[in-house]
């Protein structure tokens, strides 16, 4: 088990390095000099040079990467070109919106998907099953930002139950903040919940076809007992994979949704930075999101080992 853990940890490290190189190179080829953006239209050459030095824009490609990556390790994401403040600070603030949002959505989709999926699978072929499948089909097909727009129209502008967007901050009180995140979280969760439901269902159906379910029935377990005691946990394995993938989709989806609800999150930060050509921020945020995705997938692998004893010893 420990060996397995260490191996996955190592591969995690390698992936991170690779990712950072890709991101760095991608944004290195950007035309235009950040320093001149920062100092505006009529800046002096010498001041520019000084600023470039300060921003670590001098030196060879490798040196620049080294400074950047080295900084990341110690939590120094560099200085924003436009705001002239440490990127780390800006990201930290945004993280307190984006992360809770993604988690909120993840929780929502899981809370919907698991019962719905199990319910549908246990009543396969029934009208209930058909209904669930139909709804999930819609849920997958609906563009979540459009759904978000409709929700704003109904719940914020017409009914005025929720504020149409914005984020009061956690200091405004937990529930106030949570309320502000509710519509976005729903918009984010809807497609993921639908996908998850379908995966849960089909995975369960596959498991229910396994020999050991027949064995269990032969022992005298009722259909329901067989389902709960033997099928569900086995069915979780593929579901975990999807959950892992979904987190990355949630983070990505947040980029759009945060812009629909103008939440001061990472997604919005990315867009502001792109408009301002504040590439070091883009660089860092992308890196952070990728880091999150990789770490989550790592956690999922660990979760496998927890669910599946075959993985604990093997490898």
């Amino acid at each position: 088990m420990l060996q397995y853990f260490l191996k996955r940890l190592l591969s995690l490290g390698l992936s991170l390095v690779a990712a950072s190189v890709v991101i760095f190179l991608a944004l290195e080829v950007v035309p235009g000099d950040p320093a001149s953006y920062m100092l505006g239209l009529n800046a002096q050459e010498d001041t520019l040079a000084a600023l470039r030095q300060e921003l670590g824009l001098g030196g060879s490609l490798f040196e620049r990467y080294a400074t950047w990556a080295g900084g990341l390790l110690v939590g120094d994401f560099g200085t924003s070109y436009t705001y002239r403040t440490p990127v780390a600070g800006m990201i930290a603030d945004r993280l307190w919106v984006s992360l809770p949002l993604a988690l909120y959505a993840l929780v929502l989709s899981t809370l919907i998907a698991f019962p719905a999926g199990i319910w549908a699978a246990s009543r396969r072929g029934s009208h209930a099953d058909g209904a669930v499948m139909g709804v999930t089909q819609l849920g997958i097909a609906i563009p979540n930002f459009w759904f978000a727009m409709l929700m704003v129209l109904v719940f914020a502008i017409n009914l005025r139950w929720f504020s149409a967007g914005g984020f009061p901050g956690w200091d405004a009180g937990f529930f106030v903040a949570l309320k502000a995140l509710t519509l976005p979280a729903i918009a984010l969760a809807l497609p993921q919940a639908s996908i998850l439901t379908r995966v849960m269902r089909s995975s369960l159906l596959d498991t229910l076809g396994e020999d050991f379910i027949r064995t269990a029935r032969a022992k005298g377990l009722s259909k329901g007992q067989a389902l709960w005691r033997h099928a569900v946990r086995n069915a979780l394995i593929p579901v975990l994979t999807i959950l892992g993938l979904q987190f990355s989709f949630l983070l990505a989806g947040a980029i759009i949704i945060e812009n629909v609800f103008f939440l001061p999150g990472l997604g919005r930060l990315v867009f502001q930075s792109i408009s301002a050509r504040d590439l070091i921020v883009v660089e860092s945020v992308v890196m952070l999101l990728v880091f999150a995705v990789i770490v989550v997938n790592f956690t999922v692998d660990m979760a496998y080992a927890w669910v599946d004893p075959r993985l604990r010893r093997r490898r």
Partner: protein
Amino acid sequence: MRLRKFGLGLVSALALAASMGVAHAKSDIVVAMQLEPPHLDPTGAAAGAIDSVLYSNVFEGLTRFGPDGSVNPGLAESWEISEDGKTYTFKLHEGVKFHDGSDLTADDVKFSLDRARADDSQNAQKALFTGIETVEVVDPLTVKVTLKEPNGSFLFNMAWGDAVIVAPESIGDIKSKPIGTGAFKFTNWVQGDRIDLEKNADYWGEPAKLDKVTFKFISDPTAAFAAVMAEDVNAFVGFPAPENLPQFEADSRFQVLVGSTEGETILAANNKLPPLDNIKVREAIAHAVDRQAIIDGAMFGYGTPIGTHFAPHSPDYVDLTANSQYDPELAKKLLAEAGYAEGFTTTLKLPPPSYARRGGEIIAAQLRAVGIETEISNLEWAQWLEQVFKGKDFGLTIVSHTEPMDIGIYARPDYYFQYDNADFQKLFADLTAEDDPEKRSVLLKQAQEMISKDYVNTYLFQLAFPTIADAKIKGLWENQPTQATDLTAVYWED
């Protein structure tokens, strides 16, 4: 506001009404605007967003603009002008303190003006100061400014946001911690979200009525609409989505102020780039464009058609829209004469505001109708500054020039649209030297006609400046003589 949110939480009209009552018994205000300042030094960048937040709230100049665009005494309570019109002696108010507690003295004024006109100055409106010969400190409360030539608009120039008086010791981190003499103090800036100001208790003049001011930056028009509707903000100055104004007007919770601005919105042409260097081509474009359609389509009717680069509400304005009546046939004819019977293709680069993005789509369609194809590219401001304003790499672009009395830009051949006309430069030189109002007025009219006849750019409309505010807020500026959100006189009425 917090309370109100709770009220909404348990959906009950009663809670709503009650909490709204609560919400209004207060002296703080949340004002939203679209653009966030890149930094907070009004004397160090072109970005108007800086003035929108700081002008006269935090920073003040020797003179200041009134809501109607008139030039009034600012930090200088009075001044004398020598006969030759070259020497201005300003008398400063007594007991003016910077927010850091230090007194405002003539030295600060000298420092500010010298800094602005220095060679390495980063002041975006350096032209305002180039006429200054010397700045001398007579005594702690008296400054003498000597000009190279008489300049009729010097007092006007001194009212600009770029000419505010700053404290030498604060220059170091002025970009993030501005220290001025205004009725409000800067307290906090959450980048990408908001800037907080608080009342300056020991203000030298009429103290502000509000204790706390929060500027929120909401770039997305939808978000803006939603934010106002949901009353997340008390006021939105320069509301970006004109199509929503009728709804607000219909809603008793809000007041809608549609003011004029100094923003001449033009379809700028690159006068050095063929075929746009051909006056006939530019004239053709001017006739191909239907102003009213753009005002209706892009601004939903808000905006005054203009025929030259001058604000219609100015007494010296001449209505020259006749020079460029909408006439596609004439446009086709002119193109043919210019040798472009088959039309041609050029670029149309659009900055973010909706007047540009929407106007762009309409203009593209109108130009296509006379055979001119345009390749539209939507640019972010930074890119626009880089490519169009700085790089002059464009065919056509749509932009609103919000600086007051900025016809002078036509005298600068290196300006992005690169209009290089010796006659006009001469005319403008005379204008600058002239200080007799009548003569100035004449010259100004000539200038307007000249650029209109040269079809330098296609003059579309004067940008309307919609402000939506809670019906109970009083004292907001309606018009925008300069880019400013002067809150010194704003208060809640209950």
